[in-house]
C-alpha cells in the first residue's frame, strides 16, 4: 500500500487508513529489507504518534542512528555506544515527533559517521537496493537505502563531506543538506562541528521541501542556527528556469573521460536546461584548489572529530571496560570500542592539532577552505547555482570500494567536490538524473548560503526536466 509512495500519496492513504496500519506495513518492509540490505540498527516495535496538523502527520520515516532519541537505543553504529540509550531528544527528532511523523527505525551509518561506504557500521554492511553487490556510499547509508527501498517516503541523515548527497546519488533518491545553521544540530552526534549538517532523503524535491519546512528554524540550543524566516519552502517551489544562471566547473568535468556515461548524461541535462531557458556556463576553477579539497576536508574533519569524540570514555554513558585506574578504564574502553579506521582518524587528528603541526596542517587547511569559500562566494554573486555530476560513476562494487586511487586527479576532484558545500555551509542537493547499467546516477546543485528556497526551486525544475516534464 505505501511502498515507493511519496509523502503526499501516503497522506492520501492516511485519509482512509489508520496511522498504526501504515506504520505496521513500513515495519514489516523494514524487517524484510534488513535481512537483505541491512539498513536498520533498530526497527521500532510500536507505533508512536502524536496528532498534528502538519503535512507529515502520520507519515512514517527513518532516522540515522546518530540522532539522540530519548529512550531509544542510539549507537552511532559503533561498539563504543552499542548499548547507549539517551535521556534526551535531538531537536530534529523532537520536531518530527511533534509534527506527527512516525519513526519506523534508526538507520545504519558508517561508524560515527566517519566513512563514505556504508560498510563500517557495527551491525554490518549496508547493500545497494539496485544491486546487492554494490555499496550505497555513506555515511548515511541506511537512511538512503530505506528511502530507495520504498519503505519510508523520507529519512534523516547527516552530511559532513557528502554523507547525504553521495549515497542519494548511488541509490537514486533526492538528498539535500540546507544551509549550515538552517537546521539545528542539537542532539546529532558530532563528527566535525564546523562541517556537520543535518540532511534529508526523499523521493522527490517537493517532499524534501516539506520536511525541511518542519525541521528548519532557530534553536536556542544550537548557537549556529540561523534566525527563522517566514517562508514556506514547499508552497513556493514553482518558479521559472528563465533567467536562472547556472555554472559548472570545467576542471571537474575534464577530470574524467569524455565518454564517461555520467558526463554524457550531465551534458545532455545541460542542453535540456538551456532549452528550457536557463543559462549554463562553463567556469574555470583553480585545479590545484580542487585537488586539495579532499586533504583539506580530511585534515579539518579528523582534527575536530578527535576532540568531538573525546567524551566517549565509558565513564558516564556507553559500555565501560574494566581497568585498575580511571585512566586504564578509559584506555581499555576506547581501545575496545572503536574500529581501527576510527582510531586511525583520531591519531591523525591528534597529530594535526599538536602545537608544532597546527600551523602547517590545521591552520593551512582552514586557510585553503577559506580560499575556496571566497572563490565560490564570488561565483555565487554572478550565478544562481553550481551544477555538477554528484559522482563520476555508478556505485562501486563492495570489494572495490576501497580501491580508488586516492591520489589520482579523477578521484580527488570528481569524487570530492561535494565537500565544497560543507566548506561554505551552502545549500546543496543531489537529484537523480538517470541510469547507467541499470544503476542510478545523479547531479548536484549547490547555491549560495541561505538560498535554500532558490536551491529547492531550481532543483524542482531540474527534476521536471529530467522527468521529461513538458
Amino acid at each position, binding site marked *: 500500500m505505501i511502498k515507493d509512495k511519496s509523502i503526499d500519496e501516503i497522506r492520501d492513504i492516511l485519509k482512509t487508513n489508520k496511522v498504526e496500519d501504515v506504520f505496521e506495513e513500513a515495519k514489516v518492509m523494514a524487517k524484510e529489507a534488513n535481512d537483505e540490505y541491512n539498513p536498520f540498527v533498530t526497527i521500532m516495535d510500536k507505533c508512536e504518534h502524536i496528532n498534528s496538523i502538519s503535512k507529515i502527520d502520520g507519515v512514517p520515516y527513518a532516522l540515522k542512528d546518530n540522532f539522540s532519541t530519548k529512550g531509544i537505543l542510539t549507537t552511532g553504529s559503533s561498539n563504543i555506544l552499542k548499548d547507549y540509550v539517551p535521556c534526551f531528544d535531538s531537536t530534529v527528532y523532537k520536531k518530527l515527533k511533534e509534527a506527527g511523523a512516525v519513526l519506523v527505525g534508526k538507520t545504519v551509518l558508517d561508524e560515527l559517521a566517519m566513512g563514505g561506504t556504508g560498510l563500517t557500521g557495527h551491525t554490518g554492511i549496508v547493500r545497494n537496493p539496485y544491486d546487492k553487490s554494490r555499496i550505497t556510499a555513506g555515511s548515511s547509508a541506511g537512511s538512503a537505502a530505506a528511502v530507495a527501498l520504498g519503505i519510508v517516503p523520507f529519512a534523516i541523515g547527516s552530511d559532513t563531506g557528502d554523507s547525504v548527497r553521495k549515497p542519494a546519488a548511488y541509490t537514486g533518491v533526492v538528498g539535500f543538506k540546507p544551509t549550515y545553521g538552517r537546521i539545528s544540530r542539537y542532539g546529532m552526534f*558530532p563528527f566535525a562541528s564546523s562541517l556537520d549538517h543535518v540532511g534529508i532523503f526523499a523521493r522527490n524535491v517537493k517532499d524534501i521541501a516539506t520536511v525541511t519546512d518542519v525541521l528548519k528554524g532557530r534553536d536556542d540550543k544550537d548557537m549556529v542556527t540561523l534566525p527563522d524566516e517566514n517562508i514556506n519552502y514547499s508552497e513556493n517551489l514553482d518558479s521559472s528556469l528563465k533567467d536562472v544562471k547556472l555554472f559548472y566547473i570545467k576542471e571537474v568535468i575534464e577530470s574524467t573521460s569524455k565518454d564517461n556515461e555520467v558526463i554524457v548524461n550531465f551534458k545532455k541535462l545541460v542542453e535540456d536546461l538551456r532549452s528550457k531557458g536557463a543559462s549554463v556556463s562553463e567556469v574555470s576553477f583553480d585545479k590545484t584548489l580542487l585537488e586539495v579539497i579532499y586533504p583539506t576536508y580530511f585534515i579539518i574533519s579528523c582534527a575536530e572529530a578527535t576532540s568531538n569524540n573525546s567524551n566517549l570514555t565509558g565513564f*558516564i554513558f556507553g559500555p565501560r571496560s574494566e581497568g585498575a585506574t580511571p585512566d586504564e578504564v578509559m584506555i581499555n574502553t576506547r581501545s575496545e570500542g572503536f574500529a581501527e579506521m576510527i582510531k586511525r582518524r583520531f591519531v591523525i587528528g591528534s597529530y594535526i592539532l599538536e602545537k608544532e603541526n597546527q600551523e602547517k596542517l590545521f591552520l593551512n587547511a582552514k586557510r585553503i577552505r577559506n580560499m575556496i569559500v571566497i572563490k565560490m562566494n564570488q561565483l555565487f554573486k554572478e550565478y544562481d547555482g553550481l551544477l555538477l555530476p554528484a559522482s563520476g560513476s555508478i556505485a562501486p562494487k563492495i570489494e572495490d570500494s576501497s580501491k580508488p586511487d586516492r591520489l589520482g586527479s579523477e578521484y580527488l576532484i570528481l569524487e570530492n567536490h561535494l565537500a565544497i558545500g560543507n566548506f561554505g555551509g551552502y545549500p546543496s542537493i543531489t537529484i537523480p538524473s538517470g541510469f547507467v547499467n541499470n544503476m542510478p546516477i545523479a547531479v548536484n546543485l549547490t547555491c549560495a548560503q541561505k538560498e535554500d528556497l532558490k536551491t529547492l526551486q531550481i532543483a524542482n525544475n531540474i527534476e521536471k526536466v529530467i522527468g521529461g516534464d513538458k
Partner: protein
Amino acid sequence: MYKAVIGLEVHTELNTKSKMFSQSKNEYTKEVNSNITEIDLALPGTLPLPNKEGVRKALKLAMCLNCETPSEVMFDRKNYYYADLPKGYQLTQMTKPFGKRGYLDISVNGVEKRIGIHQLHLEEDSASMTHMSTYSLLDYNRAGVPLIEIVSEPDMNTIDEVIEYLENLRSIIKYADISEASAEKGQLRVDVNISMMKETDTVLGTRAEIKNINSFNTVKEVIAYEMKRQEEILTSGGKVIQETRRWDDTKKETVSMREKVDAIDYRYYVDPNIPVVSISDDFKEDIRKTIPVLPRERFNKYITLGVSEKDAKSIVREKEVSDYFDSVLSFGVDAKEASNWMTTRLMGYMNQNNLNICEISLTSEGLASLVKMVSEGKISSQQGKDVFAICLDEGKTPEEVVKEKGMEQISDEEAIREIVKEAIKNNSAQYEQYKAGKTALAGFFVGQTLKMSEGKANPAIVNKLVNEELNK
C-alpha cells in the same frame, strides 16, 4: 643572598545563577549529581550555550584589573583526557582571553607596588573526584561551573606582597560581585610559581609550580618552605628542576608531582560550536558602568580624610563595610573619629557576634549621629559607648536611647552656672578652705556639680565655670 620571584595563578568560581555552558544551577549543594543536565555530562550531540552573565562578569573583572579587553568573544578547546573532564576537553580561552596586560596596585608597609596581570580568562570547572581505596567517585555538580583564571606576572618577591596581592584581588572580586571568593568553599584556588635568584642575577631561576592551594595561610607556608628548599639547593651548588609540586599539609612540605610542566601539549583550537561574537563598545561601556568604586580608590580617599592606614585597610576589605562607612561620612561627621568607631566598636562587635554589616541594627545615620553627639559634647564618650551597646542590643536609634535614659548632656552655661553656684552654697566649709588657699578643692566642686546634674552637665563647661565662680 637570594630573593624569591613569585607569580600567581588564581582561580575563582563565578557567582552566576547558571553554569557557564548549560542552564544547570550554579550553586553549592550537598546532594551529589543533582545540578546536572545532558550538557554537563557531555552526552553525545550536546552543544554549549554560553552564559552571557558569565561573559559580563569576566569582562568586568578584567576591567577592574586594568586589562585590555578583546573585541570578540571566543572560546578554545583545551584537549586532555581525565576522568573529571566530561567532554574530554575543557572550554577555555587561549586565542582571545577576556583580559591581557593589566595590573593591580598594592602597598606593603607603606611602600607602593604595581603587580602586572599577564592574562585573565574564562573557562569551565571540572567535576569533583573522590578517590576511594579501590574505586573513585565523581560528582558533576561542579562540572561546567564558570571559572576565571587570573595569571599575574612574576612581580612579587615576598610573602607579604603575595598576601597583600591576594587580599586585594579577593576584595576586588567581591566588590565587583564576581564571586563570593570563599577559599573554604573552594571558590578561590591558588597556584604558586616560584623561583629564586641572586640580587645581581639578570635571568630568572628555574621555577617550581605548586598547585591548588586553598587558603592564604597555606600560601604563606608553601612560599616559606619553597624559598628555603630552593635556596638550600642553590647554595649547595645544586639545580632546581622545573616541576609541578603539591603541598602535603600533614608533613608541612611540598612534594613533587611531575617534572617539566610545559611538556603537556593541550592541542588548543578555537571551539567551532560557539560562533565568534563581536563585543561592542556599548556592551563594554554598560559593563564598565556597573563597576563600583574599588577598594584602592576608597583607601586613598580615607587616607586623605585623615583615617589611619591600618583602619582604612580594614574598612575597605569588605565593600559593604566601606559602603556603610561612606554613608556615615555623608552625614558630615569627622572621618578620623568615625573610623575609630567603625574599626574598634562596630567591627569588633561584628567579629564577636559573627555578624556582617547588613545584620547590624545600627544604621549608618544612627552611627553618624552618635559620633556627632560625642564630638559635639552632647554626651560623654563613656555615654556614647553605652548608647552604642544599647542601640545594637535593642535596635533603637541613639537619639531614642539618649532621650529614654535622660543622658542628654547639659551644655547650657547659665543652667550649669546655677548648679555650680548651688554646689558652692551647699558646701560653704570647703569653699572657705579653697579661698584659704587649698585650690585642689576645685576638683571637689566639679565632682559635686556633676553629681547634682546627675552626670548630664558637660564636664568641660563645668570645669570652666567652677573656676570662674570660685575665683570671683
